[in-house]
């Protein structure tokens, strides 16, 4: 039923983290935003999130513009949403903006994220495993959670 859709207590941190996890599971793609000396630059990337929501992983080859941008300035942002390209999005959709610092993963950290990433996107295995490809992670400092068109909550991640 339509009205039941948003019957959640958005002001409850536990509830909101559950909602974030559900959203991150349901969505495959995110918009990644980096910048080149102040010029913003957006891409679609396949992503996965860590269990504690502290990291968002995505993959890119090292020759890309986004990789170069991050290499020069790790500040980045990602947008994940569940819009369906209908008018109903205005009241039904949820959009989450994550801000933080991005970098390539290495060592044991990479192993953990890679497992999560491939569990979500098994079809990308060849791509991710290629020597030219880097598994990146955004260390999230904040989530801006927008629901019901204009209701906005900010989650600051603890160290």
């Amino acid at each position, binding site marked *: *039923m*339509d*009205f039941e*859709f*948003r*019957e*959640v*207590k*958005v*002001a*409850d*941190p*536990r509830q*909101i*983290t559950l909602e974030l996890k559900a959203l991150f599971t349901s969505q495959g793609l995110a918009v990644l935003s980096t910048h080149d000396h102040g010029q913003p630059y957006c891409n679609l990337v396949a992503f996965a999130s860590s269990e*504690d*929501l502290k990291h968002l992983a995505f993959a890119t080859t090292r020759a890309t513009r986004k990789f170069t941008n991050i290499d020069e300035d790790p500040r980045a942002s990602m947008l994940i949403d569940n819009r369906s390209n209908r*008018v*109903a999005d*205005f*009241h*039904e959709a949820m959009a989450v903006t994550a801000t933080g610092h991005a970098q390539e993963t290495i060592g044991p950290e990479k192993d953990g994220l890679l497992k999560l990433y491939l569990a979500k996107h098994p079809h990308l295995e060849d791509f991710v495993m290629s020597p030219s490809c880097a598994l990146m992670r955004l260390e999230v400092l904040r*989530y*801006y959670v927008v629901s*019901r*068109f*204009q*209701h*906005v*909550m*900010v*989650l*600051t*991640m*603890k160290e």
Partner: protein
Amino acid sequence: MNIIIPLDSIADAEAPEAGGKAFALSRLFLSGIRVPQALCISREAYEMYVRSTGLLERISLELSRKDFRDMRWEELWDSSLRIRSMFLNTAMPSALVKRLRGPIEDLFGDRPVAVRSSALGEDSTSASFAGLHESYLNVQGIYSILDHIRLVWASLWSDAALLYRKELELDVHHSTMAVIIQELIAGRKSGVVFGRSPVDEGRAVIEAIYGLNQGFVDGMVEPDRWSVARADAAIMSHEEAERERYMAPAANGTSLEYLEPEARLTPPLNPEEVLEVFRLAMKIEDLFGVPQDVEWTYEGKSLYALQARPITATASRGLSDERYLYRSLTRSFENLKKLKTRIEDELIPEMEKAADAFPSADPAHLGNDELAEEILERSATYKAWERAYWKYFIPFAHGMRLFGRVYNDTLRPHDPYEFMDLLRSSSMLSIERNTQLERLAAQVKQSPGLAAALREANGASAFPAFEEALSRFIRTFGDLSCYSARCIRDDSLIRALVLKLAFRPSSGVQARKQGMEDLEEYYLSFFPDVHKSFARELLDLARASYRLRDDDNIYLGRIRGHWEAALEEGKKRLTGRPIRISDEDIPRALKDPGFEPPPETENLGETDKTLVMMRARQLVGQPAGSGIATGTARVIAGEKDLSGFMAGEIIVCDALDPNMTFIIPLAAGIVERRGGMLIHGAIIAREYGLPCVTGVPEAVTLIRTGDVLTVDGYLGIVVISD
């Protein structure tokens, strides 16, 4: 699919398109029962309308602004009013008009009709909630009929329907409505028959009034009532009504008229007619297989069935829950007029008397036992008045609502709350109190010596005129420190407030009053001459309702203040005890030095704070006072927050009490958890022209004193700066 279905061709297959009411009428017609001529506008028309005009998504947005569980009845009413306003201001697409116009004109021409809802699912045995949707009688001419079709459609989203949304499975994308256009039978007498009484299964109940049935349905006219044994058709009882009024067709609507003396003495039905109505109910019951609730009318000697629906268990179940209370609050015009007299002439003077009766006993001079008794007595008085408040004053707020509806239906304004401008007045007690405060502040502003004396905190004894004015203020309005009343303990709060008012940075906001006469004339110009006196009476009623909405709280606040003053004294005497004692236990603890309260239950509301720190960035409520303001938030949790309030701050509170409004002239904006457009906060914001957002869930927990807020009173949004 047919968009217009004639009554004789609503076959079973078309029932889903026509709704329960139309389907039942069609069955009655086909089985030879006399029913008025009618046409059904199928659900297809509603769907075309809401889809092609974009209304569908606008309704969705309106209803998903906020979690339904956080919405109060008043907010549901507001949502419903806004949706109704959307229907009023959204024309039917011309393609739809083209398809409807011909068949309606062909059948009815210029004859008066009734336009009735025939909701899908309504009137079925699974969901029968009478009176959730609307009917309009005596509608004449194609344009008026088309207009009223939209009003009936809008009633799919009536406040009552929203209240029962779960049972009705109300859903923006699936709920829909068909409409019946029925020849108006100007019955001399009308009524309802319940084929089986809800309280006695062996009997049928017949209720009858003179005139049109609308008078009965709206609760404006009291019916005569008969019960008839179902087994042998014997009339078992007849309760006579005090017959005074009847509903008659009047220029494009109905009006309540006085009965001729002869009719007042004669029951509307004679025994043969009672039995004829009874037999009609039984015949319809045979047709449908279950007992029916039938509306009927007599035109001359001809008995017509106007509509029939099954009597269901759900219908009576609806009466037992608290929503019934809300629905019972909705009052008719006549009923509200009576309530106004009662409140103004009896209840308010009594409340004043009750408040004045207290100061004889100063709590500080009482022994512990006496104080305990005094607390109990004051609490009982307060609670009795609180009950009266719910019983009489809260329903009277519907005076404003009724006016709002009539205003919107007649004037079709873009802003559904434009009607509030006509209600503003400076005679509200809280405004009067603030005006007096401003006068005191003006004295201070003009006299640096007086200001200095006030700052010194040694009083202003050298300024007798000011002292006299101040004590006059306190005698009238109390000292503000206990939100109210004449519990004078400390006038330093008022002194500090007057200083703040005198030296606030800007000249501050002023209660607005603009060309009220012009507004009134504009409003009245929309009514035909025959309805002007009704329009005037309704405006008077609404103004009284608006004023009382405020004043009643202040009167009640004074009574509450006395109770709190005694309670305060009790608390003071108990401060030495090692345990925390709740307000309810104070009298017992005063009497019994060894009293121990039962252990507190554990607080299970802990939230997971390990992972994240959460705060609000932007919160959505209702736009309740237009304008934008940015300022520092002050969350009002108690008296201290009121006395610490600084000019230019934004009030954030759970519910703005009229007894708190003295800080409004200092405020830049208002944010309130309690929702509604007609609540005190919204009313006062409009009076002062302050941006105001109400109905922000958890406003007082998500916003903290010191946060920088932007209150967007146009869109109903509160932004919290980082």
